[in-house]
């Protein structure tokens, strides 16, 4: 059984978190769309058969998502850039608000939630 969110695959995951704003403004007011963020930043490289491994909200349980965002996300993404051409640090590109929207989406669609989600 593979490890959850560790190893080289994390580099690819990190690259997914590009700097583009999603679902309206980031300056407060509108609630960010976690599903859209996940789809645009994560799903492109974590679809079926992706080298980095497939991830959707329902691949982990709520407890695992909670641990990942609280303990693992920053450490595993430290130093990674958005892409080969965009040297913005992933940790800078993803605002706390965006990260919270993604976390909430993953938590609500986790495998042990009432409605597990695949993120389309």
């Amino acid at each position, binding site marked *: 059984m593979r490890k959850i969110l560790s190893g080289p695959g994390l580099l690819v995951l990190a690259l997914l978190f590009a700097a583009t704003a999603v679902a309206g403004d980031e300056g407060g007011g509108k609630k960010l769309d976690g599903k859209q963020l996940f789809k645009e930043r994560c799903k492109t490289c974590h679809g079926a058969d992706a080298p980095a491994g497939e991830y959707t909200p329902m*691949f*982990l349980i709520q407890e695992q998502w909670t641990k990942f965002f609280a303990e693992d996300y920053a450490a595993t993404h430290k130093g990674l850039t958005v892409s080969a051409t965009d040297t913005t640090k992933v940790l800078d590109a993803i605002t706390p608000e965006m990260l919270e929207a993604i976390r909430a989406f993953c938590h609500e669609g986790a495998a042990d939630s009432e409605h597990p989600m695949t993120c389309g």
Partner: protein
Amino acid sequence: MKHAIILLAVLAVAGPSRAGDPPVSTHQEYFEHYEGTATCLGCHQEEAESFFHSQHYQWRGETPDLVNGEGRRLGKLNTMNDFCTSPGANWIGNVTNSDGAVLAQGCSKCHAGLGKRPEPVLSREQLENIDCLICHASGYRRDLYQDAAGEAVWKPILWRNQPGLDSVAKRISLPKREMCLRCHAGAGGGQNYKRGDIEYALAGCDRDYDVHMGSDGQDMACIDCHTGADHRVRGRGADLSGTDVPGPRLACAECHDEAPHAEPVLDAHARRVACETCHIPTFARTDPTDMVRDWSTPQRHEAANKFSATITLEKDVVPAYAWWNGKSRLQPLGEPVRVEKDGTVGIMLPQGSRKDRGARIYPFKLHRGRLPVLADERWLVPIAVEEFFADGDIDKAVREGGHDAYGREAIDYEWVDVKRYMGIYHGVRPVEHALQCLDCHGEGGRLDWAALGYGEDPVRKRLK
């Protein structure tokens, strides 16, 4: 009393079954990795064997409450219903539309097994087919996959995430409301389509919605009423063929007094009128329920890119009322249909009458439909509905269903109108919402007195 002791003993281990509780890892120390049902069998062989014989696994059982059971073991596996007709040709498999969207996965989606059909003879293979987690693990979800041999099997959606699967598999408890509702509220093709009075809303409702299950009421779990031992569950209702626990019927009077009202006239009513009749004024209060399913007229759903029978949904439905003495009459497969006075075939009919002192007036969901019968033998024909959802070819679906049920290569068939009475027992409301005298005895009251054998309202007759 024995049941109560067993229940309390298990609760002491498993903790209370209440909606909204955080998951509790009751089996943390019992095993390291969940490797399928074999892991459970390591300690629970006896429980698995008892479950194997239950109706929840066999989908058939003894039929002491059918007037025409004739000693047969019957249930949804070998009878026909007026929703998706029969598991026969519809057991398992993903059916997709031209967009690749999954339209149906088969009746086994709600069988507490991992994909194999239940066999009457116990074997290790059958025991390992039992899916303990679907009823006992909080947060467990499964989906349909192909195994190495290409067979469709139900597997946990966490099958590639062993730490997550282990965590869920260790959260074992008696079934909570939401676990029961996964299947019992979603049956028939949509939320609340089949039963009408078993809604997802019951998982987290208030007392006004249901005095028993409301979190500010008694906050009861399903199994607080549907008690039992050895995985046999009481409370067959009026339209199940098999009876899991033969003997006295599950009754309100097991907890409530036989004469609980302040007004003697109401206690007098209770001798011939079931509690549910007054205390459940309507059903399908949140999600609409399927009241008519006509398979003779396929309906195209453009947005979903699929076909269905023509289904009439209704919400906040006033029940139909009929006498019931606890027995029912089934229309079996392979027997000429019995046509009632109104020209319909009764798929399941409650027995009893005004003259039957063991009968009381009960509320029912009266489900109507249109189903195929063989033109010559007049036998009901199950429909292979799964592929129909994608291609809309009802003729092909009937012929395939007929072949599966009766082994006939070619059939001639006709369409008949059918009906089924389904008891209404859930959604008991606070007393202030119970029916009042004039709801039945007023002008245009809800009871059909003639159909109940009275000729006219007995109160109004007395007043004349």
